[in-house]
């Protein structure tokens, strides 16, 4: 802290600034967040150790079953596969989202005619209702009426009547396209804002020193974007691992559950099988996975002193 001359008013103010102000600034947010979500999270944790159906929610009675919900989640071959699929699919979506978002941001950061229009165009996929977006894309991937097969066939590829949603790999590809399509705009806009916050003179200085475009990106832009980048990677991970609507609309987890991801399995156990114990355990599993991945990211970027 800056050293200043000591006068009584000043020191009171300093104490207010360093001790009280931070608490005052943080309190409204913490109240809003924990006030509403805190109990539901604790409740989910509690339910994950219980055998609880719909009846036990209304009567409040349920049996403690220890870790058996977790054991079931980890021993069921289908659920194990779901966890693995979620990890791989989620990570690929994050990579796709970040790459495309970064490319779009760098592009939008350059001056060219019609830039506002292009920025707006990039923003649009994000603005669309998720369910409507997934519906439109599902159509576009339709085997016979779809635009995708029609245009691929016109390009001379053999995609006439190709069924995208019948086996898991192409189905996940199609879903991944939609997920990236809807989540890259947020990354692009945030990175664009980050790029705009970098003072021009810093870049100019590097240019004058003879740094190539790649070197400027690698050694000037990226380090300055790092805080924003870290946040975006963490947030994208959280969203892409929790993907629900797009899968639900496009395949519903089928055929024969082959495109189920963790959030769909969680929903199915809780709301269609009414097994709130197992559903809650799967939710905790999702939390654990995300927490681990987040910590790994933070470590990788060597930010542990900051967190």
């Amino acid at each position, binding site marked *: 802290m*800056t050293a200043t001359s000591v006068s009584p008013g000043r020191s009171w*103010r300093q104490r207010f*600034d*360093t001790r009280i*102000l*931070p608490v005052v600034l*943080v309190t*409204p*947010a913490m109240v*809003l*967040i924990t006030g509403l*979500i805190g109990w*539901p999270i604790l409740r989910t944790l509690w339910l994950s150790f219980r055998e609880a159906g719909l009846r036990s929610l209304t009567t409040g009675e349920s049996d403690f079953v220890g870790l058996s919900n977790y054991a079931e989640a980890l021993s069921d071959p289908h659920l194990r596969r779901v966890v693995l699929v979620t990890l791989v699919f989620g990570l690929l979506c994050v990579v796709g989202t970040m790459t495309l978002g970064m490319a779009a941001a760098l*592009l*939008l950061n350059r001056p*060219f005619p019609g830039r*506002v*229009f292009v*920025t*707006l*165009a990039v*923003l*649009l*996929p994000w*603005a*669309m*209702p*998720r369910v*409507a977006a997934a*519906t*439109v894309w599902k159509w*576009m991937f339709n085997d*016979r*009426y*779809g*635009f995708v097969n029609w245009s691929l066939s016109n390009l001379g590829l053999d995609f006439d009547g190709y069924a995208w949603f019948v086996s898991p790999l192409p189905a996940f590809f199609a879903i991944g396209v939609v997920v990236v399509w809807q989540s890259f705009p947020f990354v692009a806009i945030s990175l664009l*804002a*980050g790029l705009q*916050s970098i*003072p021009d*003179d*810093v870049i100019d*200085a*590097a240019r004058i020193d003879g740094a190539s475009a790649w*070197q400027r990106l690698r*050694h*000037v832009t990226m380090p*300055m*974007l*790092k*805080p*924003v980048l870290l946040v975006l990677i963490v*947030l994208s991970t959280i969203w892409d691992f929790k993907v629900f609507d797009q899968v639900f609309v496009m395949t519903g987890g089928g055929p024969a559950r082959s495109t189920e991801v963790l959030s769909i399995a969680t*929903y199915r156990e809780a709301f269609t099988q009414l097994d709130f114990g197992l*559903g*809650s355990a799967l*939710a905790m599993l999702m939390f654990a996975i995300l*927490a681990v991945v*987040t910590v790994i990211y933070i470590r990788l970027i060597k930010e542990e002193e*900051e967190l």
Partner: protein
Amino acid sequence: MATITPPTTSAGRPAAGTTTSPGARRRRRKSGRALVGQIATIAGAVALVSFSVFPLLWMFITSVKPDSEILTSAPVLWPSSWQWSRYGEVIDRGFGDALVNSLIVTLTVTLLGIVVAAFAGYAFARTHVPLKRWLLLVVLATQMFPVVVMIIPLFTVMRSLGLLDNLVGLVVSYLSFTTPLAIWILRGFFRGIPVDVEEAAWVDGATRFQAMWRVVMPMAGPGIAAAAIFVFIAAWNEFLFALTFVKDEARQTLPVALQSFVGRASTDYGGIMAFSVLFTLPVVIFFLFLHTRLTDGMVAGAVKG
């Protein structure tokens, strides 16, 4: 004191690393390269716009197609006649009321959410909040649970707070689910702003709050704009809470109203598409309202000063 990357250091690094490169020759070829760069930029922009906008264009064209051309073996790229009547039907089916509800909720959430998140984000980026590390993790952890599982306990909480079936309930629940991410986004931006600017303000006699409000916030303009767009779109699009917490038709928001086109016996695709087109318009307007903040160059000037 938060460690940020002071611009001088990072600017120095490439300078040291590139002393060997022949800068002079590069500068001579600069105009030719700039032209190539410009063409590449525009090509990239065209590709980006096509990828982003095509599905929306498809949605729009579907919304004005006659019913018989919506599902056809070869896609009908251009409707044989334009059916604007669907827009009239959509508006007749309570679009206006839902629009008003959505606007009230979304604007309130955006306004309050940004203020609350900016305060917290600043505090987490620049001051010593007790238990800072833990609070930040707690804030983030709330986002790591699938919301579907929490909906029943949330419903119970909302019921005991008297927040069911009114828009206040939606505002409160949206705030608690959007502020965590907004805090993290904003904290990232605040950390990117050099500390010396703020210190200069303190030396000039500003209190910490004044320095934050008058110096740091304006410099974080692009970040605040990005966070505001995030909060706006999150609240605008939210469906599950709006459906579960508000059953009264007079207080429905747009995403819930959209579902009235999907029925037991039939689905009105043309109607859904027309509705979706109208649904995205307010976001476009909000973005146009903010875009100058998002991309203005005033920041650089402020840093120099």
